[in-house]
């Protein structure tokens, strides 16, 4: 039997603290993905992941339940990402071209049976996307990431960001427009 998020929260708050690990297992991957795409570095994404779940665990008593737990968790993670980006300042811009220190190719999916030329072409496209995405202002980047990769609805994104749905759509529209222009330009340079 699969417990809902709310049930797990209830059990955790009732003193069964180990139940929280179920929530961690359920949401660590999306939170990690969001953080990685927001920050661009595996190390930072792991730190944000850790911070997010710790903050959620410590403040679980304050979670009112009028929003979805996942929205609350995404909001904590985004706040942590923004704090980190602010701290890094100019360094965040430099990290665009930065490889993972441990040498892991974390950003590219395993190609499976894909041939080498196709794989190289896809890797190149992924790199272009990564760069174009980081060139966007954070408020547009986060909307694109949540919509494209986390596949959240407009209403969910609006709930997470606590802005009207129309603002989410507007940011997405502008973000896609800028992405399109930047990708075209990058392709021209290549």
């Amino acid at each position, binding site marked *: 039997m699969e417990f809902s998020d709310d049930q797990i929260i209830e059990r955790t708050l009732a003193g069964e603290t180990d139940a929280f690990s179920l929530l961690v297992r359920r949401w660590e991957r999306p939170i*990690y993905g969001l953080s990685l795409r927001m920050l661009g570095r595996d190390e930072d994404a792991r730190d944000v992941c850790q911070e997010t779940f710790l903050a959620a665990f410590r403040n679980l008593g304050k979670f009112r339940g009028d929003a979805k737990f996942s929205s609350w968790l995404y909001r904590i993670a985004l706040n942590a990402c923004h704090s980190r980006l602010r701290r890094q300042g100019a360094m965040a811009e430099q990290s665009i071209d930065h490889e993972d220190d441990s040498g892991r190719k*974390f*950003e590219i999916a395993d190609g499976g049976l894909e041939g080498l030329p196709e794989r190289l072409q896809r890797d190149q496209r*992924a790199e272009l996307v990564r760069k174009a995405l980081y060139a966007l202002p954070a408020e547009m980047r986060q909307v694109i990431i949540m919509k494209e990769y986390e596949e959240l609805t407009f209403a969910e994104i609006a709930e997470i960001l606590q802005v009207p749905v*129309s603002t989410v759509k507007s940011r997405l529209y502008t973000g*896609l427009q800028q992405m399109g222009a930047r990708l075209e330009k990058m392709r021209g340079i290549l």
Partner: protein
Amino acid sequence: MNNEKNGFDSLNDCGRKEDLVTYLYGEAHATERALFESHLDYCDGCRNELTTFGRVRRDLGAWQLGQVARPEIVLRRSRLDLLRELVGMFPAWARGAAFVGVAAAVLLVSLSFAGTRISLKDGGFVVSFGQTNNGSPLDPAVSSEEVGRLVQNAVAEEREKMEERYNARLASFKDQLDAEHQAELQAARAEQQEQLKAARVTLQQEMRRFNRQNTSAEIRAFFARDDSSDPWGDGR
């Protein structure tokens, strides 16, 4: 419609941008979808943008995360949480007893720091405060006059020590100043001597040069003289 300024010129200004992204992501209801599709029939801007955005979305799809190692989430509980959990394991009566015990211990420790003595005397408790220098409790018979005198003595003693320290520092400062002045005087005197010596040398050189010039002028005048009328040069 809320369109944020993006710095990119857009040819599409039909006012259906939000509808466009709703349609693009498949979140439009059937009626909205039909209406937008009929709009697409005559709006080139939206049609072009839909194509561009579709291409951007395909590009975005190229960046997929591979098999990543599971992030290790270690829920480090704060010491307070651990303490709370530990306390929660005991029954309520045990927690109450422990609380009373801890409070009593804290009270006793605080009183001992304040030098409080509790003794049984004449069938009752006597509580006294304060400590003397040797650690024994103050004699309650010490009068306020004696205390005042002790305080005055201590103040006078301290003032005397301070004056001594001040005088010693003053003397040391004076010595230091004297030594500095002496050194400066010596240096000035040496410099003056050097200057005098240099002036004397210059004067001697000048005198020698003057004498040389004078002598050669006299010699030149002697040989240039017409001595036909006075061959001896003595007016004979």
